[in-house]
Structures are given as structure tokens and as C-alpha cells.
């Protein structure tokens, strides 16, 4: 079996930059899509991308060098000291479900707006402006 803690310690800086960088980059991309895109479906996709970045950031913060999944399966009953933090994973499980609910509800609103105005471009939804 490969010992991941050795690999992790060897390339620690690179892995840190890769994981945190990916997560922050995803958040920025999602925010960019939400703020600047004109199509409503693209805005909803931007929200989902931002969600993914935040989840990655959460799980990455809970990682422990050389840690295993926090599951006490047979043969791992006593290895609690080498397990990764279970709390961020439980929170991300909640966050994924809430993210699904938000996406579904937002998409239904997009469908309704498209049917009413025959366009999904936010610049042409004039009746929303005050």
C-alpha cells in the first residue's frame, strides 16, 4: 500500500497551492458568472460552481496529513488518531443537499421567467427594473 503521508510531506507546498488555488479559483469563477453573465441559466450554473469551490475548501481544511476516512471499519477500530476531521465532511454533506435545493428552485424560477417573457436574458427582463 502506498503511504500518502510521505508523498504529501514531500510535495506539501505544491499540493496546498493546487487544492486551495482550485477551490478559490472556483469561487471566483462562480462569482464572475453570477455578476457578469446575462443568461439566467448561466447565473444558476455560476451559483453551483461557487458551491463546489466552497465544498472543496471545507473538506481541504479538515484534511490531516496521512489521514484515512473517518470510518471504523473492520481492522480500523483503533485508528481514530489517524483519521481526518469528520465535522467538515458532515457539514459539506448538508451543504450539498441545500445546494441542490437552491439550484432546483432557481431553475424552476428561470423556466417560469422564460415562459412569461420568452427570453432568458436579464437585460431584456425590463419589468423587473424599477
Amino acid at each position, binding site marked *: 500500500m502506498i503511504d500518502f503521508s510521505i508523498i504529501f510531506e514531500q510535495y506539501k507546498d505544491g499540493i496546498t497551492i493546487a487544492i486551495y488555488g482550485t477551490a478559490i479559483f472556483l469561487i471566483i469563477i462562480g462569482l464572475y458568472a453570477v455578476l457578469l453573465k446575462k443568461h439566467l441559466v448561466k447565473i444558476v450554473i455560476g451559483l453551483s460552481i461557487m458551491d463546489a469551490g466552497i465544498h472543496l475548501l471545507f473538506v481541504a481544511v479538515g484534511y490531516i*496529513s496521512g489521514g484515512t476516512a473517518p470510518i471504523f471499519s473492520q481492522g480500523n477500530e483503533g485508528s481514530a488518531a489517524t483519521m481526518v476531521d469528520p465535522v467538515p465532511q458532515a457539514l459539506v454533506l448538508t451543504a450539498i443537499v441545500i445546494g441542490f435545493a437552491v439550484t432546483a428552485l432557481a431553475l424552476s424560477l428561470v423556466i417560469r421567467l422564460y415562459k412569461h417573457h420568452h427570453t432568458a436574458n436579464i437585460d431584456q427582463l425590463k419589468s423587473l427594473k424599477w
Partner: protein
Amino acid sequence: MLKKLFVFILLFAIGYYLVATFRSIPLGENRVGDIENPTTVSGFYLDKSPNDLKVANSITAIVVNFRGFDTLGEVTVLFLAATGLASILYRKEEDEEEDDNRHHISHRLNLPSSSLVRTGAKILFPLILLLGIYVFVHGHLTPGGGFQGGAIIATGFLLMLVSYKGFTTNHNVMVWLESIAGLGFVGVGLYGLFAYGSFLQNTGWTGNLNDLVSGGFIPLIYIFIGIKVATELTNVLDTLLNIKPRKK
């Protein structure tokens, strides 16, 4: 143009402060601390989960037992999302005529899928259901659980919905399953309230670590959550895919 500039300045500021914050949080550092005499919440959970609750998957122990009330709220949010989706997309019969730009879309949707897809879907559908049920029944032993198993079952229904044109789920069965699952979750919580003094309190009997029947109420609650999530996600998919005008 000016708006774009402002957005880029804002994104740059947010990115800069996120990077600056996470530079001081090293990846892979042990923040759980001592497990035997826990000083952190994570250490407490990792200590209690196998020793007191006898639940192998400590994430399940957190989601269903320690944070069970939060999960009840989460399931409620999912239910509200499914209900809100159905009520937003519900249309009265007279709106249907003004729908002129739907025809080319619905024409493509109405093309029958090939017999290869249909036969494959028919073979795969029960296996996907079986996998989903396995995942949520073993939620306290293996990775996975009610939410994941429910999502797997919903993908099985999605496969049937896209490959069979006239496939619809039985609405009454769905409503009953969802209601029974939701009431079951609340019922287990109320049983804990009356028998042991606090809402969603687990039983004293917990069984052995890594047994299928272990952890008190945790497998029961996760089965309820699995059924509830599966029916809700299937309802969402059914609503989204069958927006066609209803037959009069």
C-alpha cells in the same frame, strides 16, 4: 464597461483576501487533537462514535445522531424545495395555448429512444434501485447513507424517465412513501423525547461495532431519510421532465 471594471476589482479583492486567509491555515495539520481526552468537537465525535454509539461511520453518527435536529431541518428544506418547484411550475389549463415556442423542443423530446437504450434501461433500473437501497441500509457501516442512496435511486428513475417517453411515477405511492418516511423520522424523534427525555435521543441499546443492526435508531432514521430523499428527488425530476401540457 465600468461595471465590468468594478466586478474585476471586487473579484480581485475577494480572491486576494481568501488567499491571504488560507495562507495562514496550513493544509494537512492535525487540528483534531487528542482522541482519548477530547478537547475539540471533532475529537469528541471520533471518541463517542465507535465507543458509545457503536457506529462505524462517524460522519453518519454526526449527521444522524449528534446533529440529528439539523438533519431534520435539512430534509424539510429539501421537501420545501420540491414543493416550491412543483408549485412554481404548475400551470393552469388556459395558459397552454400561448405556448408557441415550445413546439420544436417538445418535438425533439417526443422522439422515441432506440430499443438499445430502452432495453438497457430496463435491465439497469432494478440494479440501480438495489444499489441505492444497499447504500442507505449500510449508511452507518460504509461510505454513503440516506442522501447518497436516495440520489442513486433518483438517477435510476431519471434513466427510466429519459428512455421511456410515457414513463411517469405513481403520484399517490410517492406521496404516501414520502409522508410515511417524514412522519417516521419525526416519530423516532418524539419517541426519544417521551422515552428518554430529549428530542431524537438515541436508545441505550447500541449493539456491536460493524454489525448491520447497531447504533440504536441510526439505521432506522437513515432508511427513512433515504426513502424521503429518493421520492423527493424523483418528484423534482418528474416535475421538470413532464412540463408538457396536460391532456384535457
